Structures are given as structure tokens and as C-alpha cells.
């Protein structure tokens, strides 16, 4: 399998931009997302659009049914039946499980970068696989979960990129994601990126008190927080700097 890169972090830390720049660094890599955002951000960055693979929730369900029942017309019919729809609604974490399986499937073909959801929702993907293996005692869903589990457990071609800002809450969530993931899959590769760090204090300006704090104290405080975090960052991106690809690791 090619590398499957999952990009996550607190809301607003720059997951989408990071995903784009990581994909940019590898000419074969494709992109996918769980909510629209990549397209607009690519425009903002002035990047030449890479193909963004999309799949709808209903398609995921239908594909799954078709493969489970080995008879596509029946899957189509079932998807239209309200009763069956409700039944799907009652399957905990089904969407996450199917989405994760889809990512694995796509990564068979080419390296894949996923602009994944923020903290809680991201961890739900891992819990979904875990839960499905525990509560289902057979059937196709359990088989899917087992397969995902095998990939995650071997940890060979999956990496998790966690992005944070030099702020208390974003760093806390970085820790929370890391611990949540490693608790289930201790061998997974985690890459930490610190985004938008203010580097230089601006001490020469005559400013109102609040702005003076921003200009002078903020860079110092942010760097202090990054230091206190006590886990190394693979990459630190200065505020206003867009060039992630330059220092992209092998």
C-alpha cells in the first residue's frame, strides 16, 4: 500500500492548508476531504488544482451493500427503502468505518492525503474500528473493521499529521489526539506541525496597551508555550510563511 496521510488538529489550526501543501510535495499524491474546504483553500494559495477525490455518504452505503450482498440492484432498492435507511441510522459509527475503509482502498492505488476532521470526530474513526470489532460477532462489517485494524496495527503505511497553533487549547488537543490514537495503536507514526508561530517581537512601535502586548509579548509567549510543550515538532511554520513543502520530510 502507498502512504495514507491523515491530517488532523483542533478547528482552525490549518489542517486544510497543511493537507494541500503535503500533497503538493508528492507528485503522485491525491487528496480527499470529509467536508468541503480544499478547493477554496487551493485557490487562496494559488495552487494548481490537484484532483480531489470525493464520495458521498449515500454512495458509500450503496457500495458497501452491493459488495456485501453481491447483487447491486438489491443494494439500490434497499437504499431507497425508508425502513432500511432508518436501520442504517442505527448502526453506530457505520459511516466512519466505511469512510476509513474507502481511504485504505484509495491508498492502494496512490499515496493519499486526507484533510481529516478535528479532534473528537477524528478519534471517532479509530473508536469506530475498535467498537465494530468488539460488538459485532461476525458479518461483513466486522470483516471491514478487522482489515482496517490490521493496517493500523502494522502501522507501516499510515501516518498521522497533527497540526497545532502555539496556543494552550490547540496544543492540548494535539496531545489528546496523540494519546487517543496511540492508546489503540501504539506503533502509528505521528508527525507534529506547529503552525503560525510569531517569531519576532516588535518593540519599536508606540501602540495602545492591548496592541503593544500583541506586538511585543505574543511572540515571546508563543515560543515559551512551544518550548513547554516538551514534545519535538517535526516542522515549525512561522506566521505568514506558506512554504511547508520546502522542508517536507522523506
Amino acid at each position, binding site marked *: 500500500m502507498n502512504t495514507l496521510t491523515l491530517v488532523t488538529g483542533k478547528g*482552525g489550526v490549518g489542517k486544510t492548508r497543511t493537507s494541500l501543501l503535503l500533497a503538493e510535495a508528492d507528485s503522485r499524491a491525491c487528496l480527499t476531504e470529509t467536508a468541503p474546504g480544499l478547493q477554496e483553500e487551493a485557490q487562496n494559495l494559488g495552487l494548481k488544482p490537484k484532483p480531489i477525490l470525493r464520495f458521498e455518504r449515500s454512495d458509500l452505503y450503496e457500495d458497501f451493500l452491493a459488495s456485501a450482498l453481491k447483487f447491486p440492484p438489491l443494494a439500490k432498492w434497499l437504499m431507497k427503502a425508508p425502513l432500511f435507511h432508518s436501520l442504517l441510522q442505527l448502526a453506530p459509527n457505520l459511516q466512519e468505518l466505511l469512510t476509513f475503509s474507502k481511504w485504505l482502498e484509495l491508498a492502494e492505488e496512490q499515496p493519499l492525503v486526507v484533510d481529516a476532521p478535528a479532534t473528537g470526530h477524528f478519534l471517532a474513526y479509530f473508536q469506530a474500528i475498535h467498537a465494530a470489532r468488539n460488538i459485532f460477532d461476525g458479518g461483513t462489517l466486522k470483516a471491514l473493521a478487522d482489515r482496517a485494524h490490521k493496517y493500523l496495527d502494522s502501522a507501516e503505511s499510515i501516518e498521522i499529521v497533527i497540526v497545532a497553533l502555539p496556543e494552550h487549547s490547540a496544543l492540548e488537543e494535539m496531545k489528546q489526539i496523540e494519546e487517543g490514537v496511540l492508546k489503540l495503536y501504539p506503533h502509528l507514526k505521528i508527525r507534529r506541525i506547529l503552525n503560525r508561530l510569531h517569531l519576532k517581537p516588535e518593540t519599536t512601535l508606540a501602540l495602545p496597551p492591548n496592541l503593544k502586548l500583541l506586538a511585543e509579548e505574543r511572540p515571546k509567549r508563543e515560543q515559551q508555550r512551544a518550548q513547554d510543550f516538551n514534545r519535538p515538532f517535526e516542522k515549525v511554520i512561522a506566521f505568514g510563511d506558506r512554504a511547508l513543502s520546502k522542508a517536507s520530510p522523506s
Partner: protein
Amino acid sequence: MTRVTFIWGPGGVGKSHVSVRRAFESTNAQQTTLLMTLDPSLRVLDLLGLPHASPEKDSNAVEVTLAKQTFHVRRVDVWKVFEQLEKRKPASPRVRVFFEQMVRGMQEFRDYLSLLQLADEVSRGRYQHIIVDTPPFQDAEGLHRSMTNLRDFFEKALVQLAMKSTSMPWVQTTVKKIFDFTRVFVGKTASAQVFEFIEWLSEHHERFKSAAQTLEKLVFSENSNHDFVVTPESSRIFLESTAHIFADKISPTFFVNRSAHGLVLPEGESSFHREIRMLQERELKLLKEIDHFYPKYHLERIPILFMGDDTIEEMELFVQASMATYQELPEPSSSLTGNKTPR
């Protein structure tokens, strides 16, 4: 009657901060206020230094005093809902396990339950004003969908059918067959669990139905406000997706957080100048987008502040900050005239 203010916004813009600010303002305006969070991350509690566990008492609310204003805060606790339902109809251990999986694994199910608690709180009428802190909009869109789907879910769908099945033998046979069929996907035990869970849930059909009706009325009622939190850097996608649901029905208040509007810096060309200029340009662009999507709205700005440690002192500063803070330039140290001219 209770006024309800929903706080919506994309992730990381300061929804929780603005929720607390709105609760503070409401209390300041002599209204008895409850701040209720539907966001499973419980960030509001962190920001106010409160524990995540909900109190044992049924009232569920905790008193908070911030910058001399006292209001109540509560989180949604889906296990409380379960316990209440169980008082009326005890659940088997298997139902309990399934309920737990549903709560953990399904955003939509959690939404149903949290909305149930919100509906209860509104109809109880203990507060003049309830501020509702929602999850990030990407997830909250599901929350909104749940509001409109709640009734469908319980009326037309499976639960209803399971109810009917007890009185009509042929329906029962069909339903049983369908559930047998689910074994293909989840195995025998889990399939039996699903069936038992639905039967249990159907006992509470009426309770869910009335809550759903309360909520449907509530969201677009004249007594409800909708606050949208954005920053100058927010993307148009949030505007697009909210407009789709709200634009022709309500006139929201947009809170532009971290605004640098109207800021005049002394001459210079530092990275700080560039940052402020970027924020100002982005805000202008954003306001044009808002104009495009919303025919009617109010606008409020909260200045960009020196924050990021999530302390109570920071929060006190945040809830009281206004754009006017920028206008007060420090007295030039060389001048002894005391002539304070705002820029």
C-alpha cells in the same frame, strides 16, 4: 417566555468564548441566564475552570461568577437522559450496552439526546435567556438536520414499525425477517441487540415526539436569536452552508472575532504591520461575502487580543473587550500637557 440564543460557527473561531461573552452580557442586562453547551468537546467548561462531570443533582446547572456577573452553566449529559427513560421502563444490560455504543459512535444519536435536554430546559422556563453553545458547524449541520429529522425518525421509521409489530402479526414477521437479514452485516448477537434496543426505544416514542415538536418551533421562532461567530480569516464555506439553512428565515448577528477593523498603526513596515493589514483586508472581503449571502444581519466586532493561555483573567478581558480599546493611545512620554487626543 424563555428567549434562546444559538451560537453557531466553524471550528476554532471562538464560539465558546463568544457564548460566555453573551451569557455575561445577558446577565449584565438583568436577565436570569443559562449557558448550555451541546458541544461534546466541553470547551466552555474548560474555559470557565469547571469539571467535566455533571453534578449529581437533577438541576444539572453550575453557578459561575465572571467579572461580577453570575449565571448558570450546564452541559448535556446523555446518561442523564438514559436514566430518566429507564425510570419509566427499565432497560436490560444488552440495551444499555447498545445505548452506550450509540452514544459513543453516533453524532446523530447524541444530537437527538442533547436536543431533548434543551427542549426540556426551555419548557421548564427557569431562565429568561438560554445561550446555546453548538458544536463546530460542520458537525452542527448534522445537529440542525437532527432537529428537522427527529420527528420523522420516531414517527415514520423503525420505532413506529416496531411498535406496530406488537399488535400486527404480519408486520412482526416482516420486521423479524429484516432483522434476520442484518445478521449478514453484524452477526447474530448484535442483530438481536439492535432489535431489543429499538423495542425499548419505542416505549418512549411520545416523549421524543413532543420534544421534537418543541424544537422545530423553537429554532425559527421570533423568540430565538442566531449568532454567527467568524474571524476575518473564516472561509466562505461556512456562510454558504448556513445561508442554505437560515438566510431567508432569520436575520442573524455576525460576531467578527479577532477584528482589527479601524486600527491605525504608526508608520512602519514590520511583520506586525503586515499581519494587521492582512486581517483588515480579509475582514473587508468577508463582509462583502456576508452581504452577498444574507439580505439582513447585524454586525458586532470583538478586537484581536493578546490571549491563548485560557485563563479566567483572559476570559474576563475577552467578555468586556470592545473595539474602543484600540482608540486609547498611550500618552507620549515626552508630552506633559496631558492632552489626550484619540487617533
